[in-house]
């Protein structure tokens, strides 16, 4: 190989190098730092070099810690519930509002407002609305003639419901706009063909629209799921994890472990467990779609072979 052609082959890597360097520092360094920290018994008063290396002890401690287990379970429950609700409501709204009526664009803009509000503000807003005596919910309930208001933030079941409602309120619009965008780029003539083929509105939704939107919906779902596992501010402001541990999601626990209990190593270990969970989810999703593709390809090949005979 001549020098010139070798240089030619190396050129792309040369151009990629700056990006690779930045990526290494900005992305891998902090993650590496966190992974390393999770093997340390480290308090904020120490520099990282002074902390004791304790191997996997942080992790084993966590696995035996019932409170962490509880947090973990709350997080999964929370993420599953909010993402399911948001997907159903978001996609449902998109299906309803995907038409050209006057004023629809204004309506759409209003729908996505909640997403633009800072989470701390959302938390504060909902806290006032959930207030046991002066909050709008309980005042309404009482004015309807009921004696008792709902103990929104002081009962463990209700407080879970309360944080779910706040999160659904804030993040449904995210799914709504992505679903709407996907829906508007659907091939119009295929839907017209379905009209002629005799599909009802419902059949058009379930047999044409949803399947065609599926790739976008799956990505949306992943993004929301990852986000839901990491919510912090709204819950911190609303309930701060309580009452008891009923709304203490892992992110909040990590924050408190670092802030209040000054256990940086343990907090890092918790973060890592969360990270691994999310990575497992993403990789699982990736392989699932690969598997689907491979299966379809295999079926096709088999079918063609059969016909060849």
């Amino acid at each position: 190989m001549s020098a010139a052609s070798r240089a030619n082959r190396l050129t792309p890597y040369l151009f990629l190098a700056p990006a690779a360097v930045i990526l290494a520092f900005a992305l891998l360094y902090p993650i590496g730092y966190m992974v390393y920290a999770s093997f340390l018994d480290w308090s904020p008063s120490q520099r990282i070099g002074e902390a004791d290396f304790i191997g996997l002890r942080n992790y084993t401690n966590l696995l035996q810690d019932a409170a962490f287990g509880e947090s973990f379970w709350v997080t999964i429950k929370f993420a599953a519930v909010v993402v399911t609700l948001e997907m159903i409501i978001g996609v449902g709204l998109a299906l309803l509002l995907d038409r050209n009526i006057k004023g629809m664009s204004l309506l759409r803009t209003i729908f996505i407002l909640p997403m633009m509000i800072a989470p701390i503000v959302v938390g504060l807003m909902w806290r006032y609305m959930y207030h046991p005596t002066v909050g709008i919910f309980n005042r309404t309930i009482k004015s309807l003639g009921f004696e008792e208001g709902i103990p929104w933030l002081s009962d463990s079941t209700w407080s879970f419901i309360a944080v779910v409602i706040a999160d659904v309120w804030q993040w449904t619009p995210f799914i709504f706009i992505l679903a709407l965008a996907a829906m508007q780029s659907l091939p119009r003539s295929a839907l017209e063909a379905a009209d002629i083929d005799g599909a009802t509105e419902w059949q058009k939704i379930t047999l044409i629209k949803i399947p065609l939107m599926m790739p976008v919906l799956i990505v949306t779902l992943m993004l929301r799921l990852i986000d839901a596992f990491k919510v912090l501010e709204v819950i911190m402001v609303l309930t701060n994890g309580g009452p008891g541990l009923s709304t203490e999601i892992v992110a909040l626990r990590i924050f408190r472990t670092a802030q209040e209990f000054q256990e940086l190593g343990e907090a890092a270990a918790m973060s890592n467990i969360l990270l691994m969970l999310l990575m497992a989810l993403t990789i699982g999703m990736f392989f699932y779609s690969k598997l689907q593709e491979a299966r379809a390809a295999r079926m096709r090949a088999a079918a063609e072979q059969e016909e060849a005979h």
Partner: protein
Amino acid sequence: MPNIRLENLVKRYGEFQVLHGINLEMKENEFTVLVGPSGCGKSTTLRMIAGLETVSDGEIFIDDKPVSHLEPKARDLAMVFQDYALYPHMDVAKNMSFALRLERRPKAEIDAKIKDVAEMLGLTKFLHRKPGELSGGQRQRVAMGRALTRNSGTFLFDEPLSNLDAKLRGQMRAELALMRQKVQKNMIYVTHDQIEAMTLADRIVVMHGGYIQQQGTPEELYKRPVNKFVAGFLGSPPMNFLEGDLADVDGRLCVQGQGFCLALSDERRQALANAPRGPVTMGIRPADLTYAPDAGDNTALDLRVVVSEYIGAQSVLICDCAGQKVEVELKSDTPIALGETLRFAANAQAIHLFDRETEEAL
């Protein structure tokens, strides 16, 4: 198969009127072709029949039942779209069986039907492919197959061949003509290609600017166009138009223009006995002009060859007749030179005359 009738069909988009009262009746098992230039309202008409577009005014009757308020699925028709409109996430078999599956027909019946249609269209090998994995021509056949698997009374086609290359289009056109013989159904076919119109149609409907210009068999329209637009639209190469005056010369009725004077046939003279003399537009098809060096003055045009387009056995000559453009066809092996003036005899029976102002045929 049902009989479809359009009565004073009007379509407006806001203030903008696209169709101005279309009246049309399609007999049983007739292959009707709507043809016209781009934007003349062909697709709109077809989509209104299909129920994909609302009717602004007038009515559509299927078997004498008004249907303009009915959903597409209640109208018993199948449609082939210009962009095929296949369902991208379903394989060919699923695409073709979609309507049948919605009707919850028994699986055996569906399979048999798919097999039949796939065989007829040569799609058997592709039944398990998705539309994205097919060529343009194969997709086109799938679109056709999807319409055929349904047992509807009427088939609508919106420029089904316009996305294909010239060779494939010719091939598919022939296949369509063949399918037409096997499938006895009402067919309404939209195209802007006059060759498709001429070869496929039982009846051609020429549209222009939201009006029907003329309807009839291909032969009627070719031989007796009612106006200059229809005359110029059908036939390839297109009809030549020459400006001239209708005048009596030496006891014969002639069209006299710059550099030519053609005598009309006796029947024409009788028919036009009372017509006012004066400016007219004369139309004559290239096929009715034959190279004849010895032809007499009153039966021929003298044309100076400007461009010769070689297309094989025949060449199309673009000529000049005292400032007016005339196209003629000539055997390619005729020895001629550019710039040479040649004499072409005009078939007096085939001369068309149009009013200069209204462009109606005289």
